[in-house]
């Protein structure tokens, strides 16, 4: 089943040259898709267009067959720098995810606590984000995104603000979580500049060029999870992705 269809998206700021030039790809149910490209190529802008935060200059985004015209229920977002509101407790930050739902405050609280528990953050619910480590902050960020009951999770370089050890653990947790049937998330679109991360996690990698961003290649990865980073197939895939990135 087709969840998201990105159809010939272009974007330019009012004055400057094109940032994104005619990008198209699709995301099916159950798919983990990575958007891979060099830093500053407009990946994050593309993800924000998919989320409905930014209007594209040309083209359209379809979610379940409908035009995305603004932030849409069913599409949720995980930010690179977590974007937790510092003046809300961790619990209240997660509760933000339930804002659009017609449930009682008590119910919001109960469900948020459950989510915090799932992410190993019990004991921190009444603390403020500033006492958390980067990895824990991103867990709160992901819990908040999942709270809004999304079909598709959009993640903007979710691990790049974390140190490699923390990022590795969190990546494993996310893979484990996605297998979990009782979570609402069906598909993930993740923006990254980390080739290894993209190959470790995704079913499909959309490789973008540098300024302006167009799709250089779409690579399907048919490897079983969990993937062995030192396995032959993994390394071969790494090589071929690097080859595409290096090509002009």
């Amino acid at each position, binding site marked *: 089943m087709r969840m998201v269809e990105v159809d010939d998206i272009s974007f330019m700021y009012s004055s400057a040259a094109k940032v994104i030039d005619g990008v198209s790809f699709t995301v099916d149910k159950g798919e983990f898709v990575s958007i891979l490209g060099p830093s500053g190529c407009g990946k994050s802008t593309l993800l924000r267009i998919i989320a409905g935060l930014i209007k594209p200059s040309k083209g359209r985004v379809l979610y379940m067959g409908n035009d995305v015209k603004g*932030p849409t*229920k069913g599409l949720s977002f995980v930010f690179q*720098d977590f*974007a937790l509101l*510092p*003046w809300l407790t961790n619990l209240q930050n997660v509760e*933000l995810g339930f804002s659009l739902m017609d449930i009682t405050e008590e119910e919001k609280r109960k469900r948020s606590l459950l989510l915090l528990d799932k992410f190993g953050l019990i004991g921190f619910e009444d603390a403020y984000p*500033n006492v958390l480590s980067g990895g824990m902050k991103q867990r709160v960020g992901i819990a908040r995104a999942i709270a809004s009951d999304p079909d598709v999770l959009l993640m903007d370089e979710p691990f790049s603000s974390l140190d490699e050890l923390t990022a590795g653990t969190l990546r494993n947790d996310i893979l484990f979580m996605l297998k979990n049937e009782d979570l609402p998330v069906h598909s993930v679109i993740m923006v990254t500049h980390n080739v290894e991360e993209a190959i470790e996690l995704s079913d499909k990698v959309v490789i973008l060029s540098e300024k302006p961003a167009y799709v250089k290649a779409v690579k399907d990865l048919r490897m079983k999870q969990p993937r062995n980073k030192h396995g032959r197939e993994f390394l071969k895939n790494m090589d071929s992705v690097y080859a595409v990135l290096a090509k002009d």
Partner: protein
Amino acid sequence: MDATGLAGLIASILVNLVFSWSRMLIALGVSVLLGIAVGIYAATSKRAEKVIIPIIDIFQTLPILSFFPFVIYIFIALIPGFVGIELAVIFLITTSMLWNIIFGVYEALNSIPKEYIELADLYNLSTWRRLKKIFFPASLPYVVEQSMLSWSIGLFYLVTSEIFSVGTDACQIAGNTAGIYSVKTGIGVALTCYAATGNTLGYALGIIFFILFVIATRFLLFRPLENYANRYTRQSVQRKTTNTYLRNAAVRLFKYLEPPGTERIRVRLNRPRRQEKIIASRSASPAEKQESWRLKYVLITLALMIIAIAGVKYLVLYELEILRNFVFSILRVWIAFAVSLAISVPLCVYLIFFTKKSSSYILLFQVIASIPATILLPAIVAMMGKSPYHSEIIAFLIFIISGIWYLIFSIMSASKLLPANILEVKRIFGLKGLAAWKKVYVRAIVPGILTGGVTAIAAEWNASIVAEYYGSGVSGVSLGIGKLLDTSFASNNLPLLFLALVNLAAMVVIVNSLLWKRSYKRMSRIYR
């Protein structure tokens, strides 16, 4: 009016402006020289730092403008006549310009990367070469930046002191037949007289030329200085805005009010983390020690002031009267603050979250804010008429105009530290209406409100002497601490004048430590 008359009017306005600007330039020159010398001294000598910084902290907090009658009194006593009053005005402007320059230099030197000092040690540079090669170039951008702030604060003091010294009845007979305690030429004098004699054209032209002078000073004096001072600093490093000073002032204030032994409040400012003390670090002392001497100096200074009021006699005689006046002033100041808050919170929320043109608005505000509230006073008075209720409204307006800009600029400046993507979070999770105001907008500007609040209230107290004084000729308010300062000055009642000042100072310090410091501490625990 014919062409000659108009030319004469403009010429006289220009002469007055030149006189005022000369006072300003002299005061700025003195402030810069003193500021650099004292700042470097404080930053490089542990012992000097212990004495200088706490004293300046106190002077910064106090409504120095209220000391104006007192200063005039002393200067006239020492140097009679025209020179004395002229020096008193320049002295007063200097007291408004000096402190932040000293702090600017002090902070600049303290934020010099440690590597530079290590380099100087490594090459065994002499003190003079250190000054020339490191300290002076490092502090120059801060000096220029603080000078700009000093200039706008100074303008307020200049106009106010000129108006204050000339009185309102002095110009009733044509020209400047001012009293003995007054400067005779200056834009504040001229505007007061135009207003008093009903010369609307003169008043309007005066304000227009005043604003032109403000803008010209910005571009002809400070812009080149800025370019010169910043030629070493990297382009990528964003220059601090003048508002940062206000924030820094507030931060410093809380630092020194912190009781000994407790952990210092550290606020992350948009500047690199403070390096260790450059020279003092060689004999670094524990933090507790630093805190205790800060507090000690506060106590000693206050004690000295109280001792200086020549005994209990006057206390018994006047304290009740002072407190009675105080109640009225406190009410006015705080109600004015509440109103300022009610205006600036929605305004700033709009500027931060709803419009993309906030920087143009800020620029506009900066021009408006550089017009001293006191300069508008005659116009306000003229519009209000002479009913006694009107004098209350006038006082109120002056309080608001003097304080609100600090609030607005501080909130806007603090908003730069807000986490990115706040609005995206709001949109993604569909926060709307009341929930958005409660959970996002208002909460986001709390740090700015707190830091701006301290300075806004201080500015209001500073203006009290004008706000409540105004219209001793017209119809000023009948009770208030500013009024009391004015009448005690007019009647040569020195002990009452001084006691009122001590009361004012004590009140400012107490409110700072009880209210602002506490809320600030609470906030800094949450907001990083």
